């Protein structure tokens, strides 16, 4: 399939990445080649074949829903560079 600059800009937006004009051009070319490469998978007949999401046989690993407090909460919150208020990270509003 054809990878266009518009598609790359749309994908970048979904991924929350800004692209310069030069980057859009470069990534359009590279992604075109990569998508061409992965399209090879279309030559495999997979009708009726189940999907594999997990390979070592583990499923539904359950445990009690118990609260375990992280012992170094203040150090954890200190990893943020934003202002801290009441143990919460303060950022700009998300709407409007």
């Amino acid at each position, binding site marked *: 399939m054809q990878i266009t600059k518009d598609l790359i800009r749309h994908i970048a937006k979904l991924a929350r990445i800004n692209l310069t004009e030069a980057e859009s051009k470069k990534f359009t070319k590279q992604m075109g080649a990569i998508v061409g490469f992965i399209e*090879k998978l279309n030559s495999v007949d997979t009708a009726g074949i189940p999907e594999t999401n997990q390979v070592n046989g583990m499923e539904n690993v359950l445990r009690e829903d118990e609260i375990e407090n992280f012992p170094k909460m203040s150090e954890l919150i200190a990893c943020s560079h934003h202002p801290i208020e009441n143990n919460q990270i303060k950022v700009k509003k998300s709407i409007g």
Partner: protein
Amino acid sequence: MGITELNLVETKKLFEEKKVSPQEVVEAYLSRIKKIDPKIESYLFVNEGATADVQHPTSNIQSPLFGIPIAHKDVFCTAGMPTTAASKILADYHPPFDATSVAKLKAVGAVNLGKLNTDEFTMGASTETSAFQKTRNPWDLERVPGGSSGGSAAAVAADLCVFATATDTGGSIRQPASFCGVTGLKPTYGRISRYGVISMASSLDTIGVITKTVADAAIALEILAGQDSRDATTGDALVEKYSENLRTELKGLKIGIPKEYFVEGLDSKVEKVIREGIAQLKKLGAEISEISLPHTEFAVPTYYVIASSEISTNMARFDGVRYGPTVANEEVENLIEMYFENRTRGFGDEVKRRIMLGTFALSAGYADKFYKKALQVRTFIKRDFDETFKKVDFIATPTAPTTAFKIGEKIDDPIQMYLADIFTAPASLAGVPGISIPAGFAEGLPVGLQLLAPQFAESKLLAVAHAFQISTGHHLKKPTFNL
């Protein structure tokens, strides 16, 4: 012979015989790092105070790794030390906790010398995508060490630590081990806890080690393997005494050679070394036969669709809010703008490419065509291994199609770089354990032999690799860059 040239088993013996103190050994490594690492650039952070860490409260002289200097790939969270994933987006992150594997090694006395370079977020096959430095191959400083665990492989090859932790998602332990002439063990998916290791692709990420010998890897795996309530994918399979099950001959074992791994693209000089290695396995008593893994050619495209899709979701957490550098709130209009700014500035090109490829493969209109398709082809690839292991005990292949390539040679051609994983990605998709061991040299550069085994058969895998290793001695040759 210098202290730093010794492997884990030899260093432990010196301690037991009280010929040298752990403090002296740690000092020897620190001074070698100071002298040699400016040429190799394997360390992103050196723990200058490592000597004082020998006396850890939970370990003593009887502890299995007491005083053994090791280092961690910089995706393992280490309390109080930087953990950057070689990315600008985590440039100043100091996690307040240790990864399970870091804690386990610390608890048995290992001393952490520091953090090792990697491709950014482990995405690459040359360690060139690191945002901070290019690690060099100790066998030829103009060449890459492989990747993504290039810092780990180069540091072990250059005697800058006794062994190193590493991660392997599509070949990131085995391929650099091959390029640097060291031993690289990628266990079964879920054998070692991933807790505290920065994720790349969660259904593929596997924790392992790069060591000087197979016997050293066996000791390390005994310590690292096992179930962890913080990683639900860790299996409850028995953790065996791997170091006590090593063998010296291979009588009665069947080893399959997949014909699909000896095709165009495999360097003829590499092939010659691997054929000699296979002859050696036969000489040790193994029964060798040709086998077929028919879906091999689809492994790299399958891998890149699945890995990139998982990357695009895992990387969504990096937005500059909870950790890492960020634009100030005053510099942006709203939260979304801050996400865009931090991610645009913080991620390098390869990470952006894979996030975009994954976003594309999961997006409306394309998810069935690419993502679902790749998950179905993964089923075929896993079945190839399941069927083959009904007929043979092990599979032997080249680890990589070439020896170490030149720095800069492939960095602008993503597909060529992806094809460096051609012989390692299939085992990752099937979740089976693999090991790369030195098999000889082609024009002075190391070549690795890859051995693969059924899931959770690490004990047999290490036993066979050990028999090969001690019968050949290729692992004993050291690079001469510093003479």
